């Protein structure tokens, strides 16, 4: 292994980070080139692998389309409300589990194993309870983000240094003062991490629900492009959605590290 690195270092007069960036650029260019060749070769259906410029054009078309912003706002609103409802419930559940060993033993296994089950299968029930409109999508997102927040907050509270809590007791803090002045600041990181994970799967839950049964939102727009076989537009919508999901994740990730 050391031999290889010596050879690598000998070959290159460029610094490691420069070569890294060059390799990245080369990979991106190669992927686009292979894609473009595949699109023009006629080996694939042109609709499945459309030329890059068609995808860019579709993307541009989406970004100037008022209907896109209307639907995007609806989806954003659903995700936001879902995050508030599911997040608050998850946060409170996490605190209850974190402070009580009894509740932890009683309910944490349930939470721990229900957490990773596929939530979307609850959707038919949610439609019956909350209707075919935004209600069932919000419920879907809320259920999704409840679990990571509850688990993350409970684990965070358990990892708090007991000295901090004893200091609070010496100051005769009430339960709510303890939560507000000691627990919440001490578990800032797990909270943001829980929100980050929760937001990620709330986006998935909400948009998937929209693709299944809806007449508005980004998920609905995507499944419409499938129904009308407008694949270039589908690529454009998926790219926008992925940029939004990965971007919001990275943004929250930045908060945890400060």
């Amino acid at each position, binding site marked *: 292994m050391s031999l290889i*690195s010596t050879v*690598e270092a000998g070959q290159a007069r460029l610094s*490691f*980070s420069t*070569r*890294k*960036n060059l*390799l*990245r650029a080369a*990979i991106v260019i190669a992927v686009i080139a292979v894609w473009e060749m595949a699109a023009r070769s006629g080996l694939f259906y042109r*609709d*499945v692998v459309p030329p890059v410029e068609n995808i860019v054009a579709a993307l541009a078309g989406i970004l100037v389309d008022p209907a896109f912003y209307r639907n995007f706002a609806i989806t954003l609103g659903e995700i936001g409300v879902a995050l508030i409802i599911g997040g608050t419930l998850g946060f409170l559940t996490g605190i209850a589990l974190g402070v009580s*060993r*009894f*509740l*932890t*033993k*009683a*309910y944490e*296994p*349930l939470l721990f*194993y*229900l957490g*990773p*089950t*596929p939530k*979307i*299968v*609850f*959707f*038919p*029930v949610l*439609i*019956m*309870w909350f209707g075919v409109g935004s209600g069932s999508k919000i419920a879907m997102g809320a259920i999704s983000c409840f679990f990571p927040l509850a688990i993350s907050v409970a684990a965070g509270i358990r990892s708090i240094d007991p000295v901090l809590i004893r200091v609070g007791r010496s100051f005769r803090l009430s339960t709510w003062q303890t939560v507000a002045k000691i627990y919440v600041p001490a578990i800032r990181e797990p909270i943001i991490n829980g929100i980050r994970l929760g937001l*990620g799967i709330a*986006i*998935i839950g909400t*948009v*998937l629900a929209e*693709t*299944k049964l809806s007449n508005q939102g980004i*998920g609905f727009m*995507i*499944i419409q*492009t*499938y129904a009308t*076989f407008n*694949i270039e537009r*589908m*690529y454009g919508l*998926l790219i926008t*959605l*992925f940029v939004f*999901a*990965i971007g919001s*994740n*990275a943004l929250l990730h930045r908060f945890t590290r400060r």
Partner: protein
Amino acid sequence: MTRSRFRLDTDVLARVAGAASIVILLAVVEILLRTGMLNVYVMPLPSAVLGSFGRLFMEEHLLRRFLLTFAEALAAGLLVAVVGVAVGAALYRWKLLRAAIETWVAAFAAAPLVLAYPLFMVIFGRSALTIIMLGFLAGIAPVILKTVEGLAGVRPTLLNVGRAFKLNGRALFWKVQFPAAVPTIFVGIRLSLIFSLINVVGLEFLINFGGLGQLINELAEQYDLPGTFAAICFVVIVSVVFFVAVERLERWLRPT
């Protein structure tokens, strides 16, 4: 001694209380439904849900559907293990490549891939292949990352022992590095299997094809409320059993 004994007893008590509270909740729902305070068309009787399990096994071929779902998840899992470990080993071998794309792999793990399922339907059709490919892609990133981590974390002493026996590069990899990295790699595989299973069942439901997920969709469309609830419960039970099983497997692989 007495203190730990006391702890143990309260823990057992807590578990019993947890289980009992769920049974009581179900009983309350049953009573509310029977007295008409809750609507049976919105919430089925818990007893009816329990009763429809037999029907699902007999009429809806629950076992065969379970095996189909399991086979899809297994196929995705095997693909993930083989490709993920190979890519991870390649990233470990070529430092420059690792520096260039490791963060991309991590970002890929955060991408909501399942949302691209309409695209996969266009490419692979409404088939098991769509389900397996998405299950595969959804689970690939953790295995790659954990393989790199595992190989990079092999203790130098082990490598030195291997070199002392004059092992060549390939033998060193297969006899020392890879076995030493297996426990870490399996952490990634466990996560992947969970992602794969979630995606497989979810997709079966969404594209109305295949095993357990499709069953939920069909029963819901027939407005068979007790059946839908029973099928959802079955999926939850299967997932939980699956998670516990891979967790045990991971513990068994980890050297103590």
